[in-house]
């Protein structure tokens, strides 16, 4: 067994033990409620929230695929850096409101919020289904990141991946969100080490960054492609900007981000974290520059799998033990988001499909059990996609998933600010956005070959929609998601006054403005619904009694919409 593999296995084993032990960490009286299993008791402080969110956002696939993009195209592949910078100021105001309203009403998923805000069960279900569909291929992508590492270490494709995922599935089943929260601390330490290793290795190369960038520039000049280079070509700029903006919007809407957000203890924790997280983008930036370093060192991907560039570069340029740590960083970095994503998808299913359509009176224990089982199913579904179908299929699905999840923006993000939209208008908007988005993705051909002009595949070849379809004589392209979202918003905004004029019934908003600013310790952070719907309480400031995990919720506690 090579040194790399030994280090990898040792770290991975330690992480697996930690994952199982996490169920004893801050042990609750009963883990059998969705808030304990699926949100870690909503009690994570500054540090744990930081690790959890960074583990959630900066996934293994990002660390593997993005440097590959930089390796192939140069500047155009650098879009995740602006994307992961602009996303935090965008989220700063919005997420605090989301945290508050979910805390007041006990929501676990964005779909529940939409259901209560717009008084529409169907809209909530649509958001839930879109969330699940978008999340599943994202989990598969994490597997692709791990697969690249296994490939470099010379392991076969099937069983190591399966073993890793069985471990992951079991500790998620056991510990819920506490598992990835604890493991993400290890992951961040490993990533930090990998970044230091990159910086040290580059510092030891003669000429350092200057040489590396010069060599890379020469390489891009030598290729017949016109869309690569150290700087953005004019025709790539629109796509670069829209892709960064669209990815930032999508990141907010992905259910796993929101799950990580809801697990934080209070608004202050969340806001402090959003102030610090942009700095984490620096680690991603450094790892992206590995793409250039790989050009300098002449690294070639292993076995035709382009994603192996980064692990292969570590393998060739770092000491064996350090390469092992970098591999472990990617491996563990795949497990954290995969666990959170499966938990998020499972919560969506339980709270927005199972409890709404199948068993409205499900107890907290039953909910948790369903959620656990679904998280297993989701992970094995992702594994099957990867093993039985092919890698490309997962990537294509993820591409579509990003466009799908963006369509929930008017309901989720704008819904935090206003309930002006009519529920049917939002539905029409989502429908229009979906149809247009998928049609545009279908139109995009996959280009390849030496000059990047040969059509390899007719359809679903990327997310950059050429503006030449509109008759413009230009090579510029635009990110499909942004166009679909714009159409979605237009339809929703146009349909709302029409539906109101036609006197079609609006949904009933269950939330109140004050819910959106409530914080931990605020006397109004409690189940508001008995105030809204039930008998007036003795005192409006009496807190709700302890939530008992095993007893049924009172029939009138929360109106099922």
């Amino acid at each position, binding site marked *: 067994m090579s040194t790399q593999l030994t280090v990898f296995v040792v770290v991975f084993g330690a992480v697996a033990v930690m994952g199982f032990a996490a169920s004893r960490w801050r042990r609750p009286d009963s883990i059998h409620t969705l808030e304990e299993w699926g949100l870690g008791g909503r009690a994570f402080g500054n540090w744990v929230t930081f690790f959890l969110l960074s583990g959630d956002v900066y996934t293994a696939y990002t660390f593997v695929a993005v440097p590959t993009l930089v390796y192939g195209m140069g500047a155009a592949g650098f879009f995740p850096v602006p994307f992961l910078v602009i996303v935090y*100021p965008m989220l700063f*105001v919005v997420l605090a409101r989301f945290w508050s309203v979910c805390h007041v009403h006990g929501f676990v998923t964005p779909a529940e919020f939409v259901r209560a805000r717009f008084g529409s069960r169907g809209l909530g279900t649509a958001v839930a289904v879109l969330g699940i569909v978008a999340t599943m291929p994202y989990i598969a992508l994490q597997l692709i990141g791990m697969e690249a590492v296994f490939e470099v270490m010379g392991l076969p494709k099937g069983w190591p991946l399966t073993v890793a995922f069985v471990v992951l599935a079991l500790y998620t089943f056991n510990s819920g969100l506490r598992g990835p929260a604890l493991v993400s601390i290890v992951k961040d330490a490993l990533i930090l080490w990998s970044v230091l290793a990159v910086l040290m290795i580059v510092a030891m190369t003669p000429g350092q960054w200057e040489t590396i960038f010069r060599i890379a520039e020469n390489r891009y000049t030598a290729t017949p492609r016109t869309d690569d280079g150290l700087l953005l070509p004019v025709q790539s700029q629109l796509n670069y900007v829209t892709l960064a903006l669209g990815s930032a919007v999508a990141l907010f809407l992905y259910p796993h981000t929101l799950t990580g957000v809801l697990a934080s203890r209070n608004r202050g924790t969340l806001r402090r974290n959003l102030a610090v997280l942009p700095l984490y983008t620096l680690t991603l930036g450094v790892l992206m520059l590995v793409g250039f370093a790989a050009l300098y060192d002449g690294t070639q991907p292993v076995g035709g799998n382009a994603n192996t560039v980064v692990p292969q570069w570590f393998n060739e340029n770092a000491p064996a033990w350090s390469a092992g740590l970098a591999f472990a960083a990617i491996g563990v970095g795949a497990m954290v988001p995969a666990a959170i994503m499966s938990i998020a998808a499972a919560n969506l299913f339980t709270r927005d499909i199972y409890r709404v359509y199948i068993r409205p009176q499900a107890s907290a224990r039953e909910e948790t059990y369903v959620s656990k089982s679904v998280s297993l199913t989701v992970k094995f579904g992702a594994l099957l996609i990867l093993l039985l179908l092919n890698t490309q299929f997962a990537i294509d699905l993820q591409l579509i998933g990003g466009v799908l999840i963006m369509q929930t923006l008017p309901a989720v993000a704008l819904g935090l600010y*206003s309930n002006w939209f009519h529920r049917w208008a939002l539905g029409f908007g989502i429908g229009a956005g979906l149809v247009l988005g998928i049609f545009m993705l279908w139109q995009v051909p996959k280009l390849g070959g030496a000059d990047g002009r040969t059509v390899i595949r007719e359809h679903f070849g990327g997310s950059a929609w050429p503006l030449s379809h509109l008759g413009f004589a230009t090579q510029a392209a635009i990110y499909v998601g942004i166009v679909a979202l714009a159409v979605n918003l237009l339809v929703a905004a146009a349909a709302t006054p029409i539906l109101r004029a036609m006197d079609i019934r609006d949904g009933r908003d269950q939330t*109140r403005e004050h819910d959106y600013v409530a914080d931990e310790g605020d006397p109004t952070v409690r189940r508001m619904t008995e105030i809204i719907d039930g008998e007036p309480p003795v005192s409006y400031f009496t807190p709700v009694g302890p939530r008992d995990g095993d007893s049924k919720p009172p029939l009138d506690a929360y109106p099922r919409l």
Partner: protein
Amino acid sequence: MAHSPYGHPDRDSGEPPYAVPPSWTEAGAGEPDRWGSLPVNAPPLPAWARRPDREPPYPPEDRLAGPRPSRLAGVREAWIEGMRAEAEAGSAIPDRAGPVGPARAGADVQAMPERRIRAAAAEGGMKAALRGRAQVVPAREHREPRDQPIPPPAAGWSVARHRSGEWATVRDRRARRFAFGEQREDRSRWHWLLLIPIVLPLMPVLYNRVDPALLGMPFFYWCQLAFAFLASGTIAFVHRKTR
């Protein structure tokens, strides 16, 4: 809107703008924690944030509730005027007497022209105002909110209040439609600053160049990495300003 003897406590001074009976502030020290299920030992509300013992019989008139029926017009205002006159006349706000509190808010008031109520209130305080034809009677049995007042708060604890000074949960009982440009509780001009780190990274015109290079790294790359510091700093600044 008429000045309420309770509303609009000044957040900054921390002192309520009306006379607080001593029993509100002193009582209850050293009581056991009756807030068991609030997160970790949340200190109870300060006395001034408690629901007062006497409240005007109706919520303030606003666009939330819609226009008040004409037979009830001016009742609240008269009540407030009366309380004010009473307080000015020297009698402190009675501690635990008289009608009221929203649990009792179903109280019915018989018709009396607003003009007369106001005149009566100006003359001789609340009792005189009610001596006319208007009588406040409890609509139904109610449970006493609390036997004893709440102990004073720990230092440094602040309680979120609705901006209007009313209790949010009462005021917002009815759903309403929120327009986008509306005044919100968490609104702040400082939030506009957040646009800077959003817009700058989306303008490749600014940074799509090689010079000036840093450590051999083209401007394109290190500038975008530097935006991370800009975003972090801006968010931290806005966070401090809006906390």
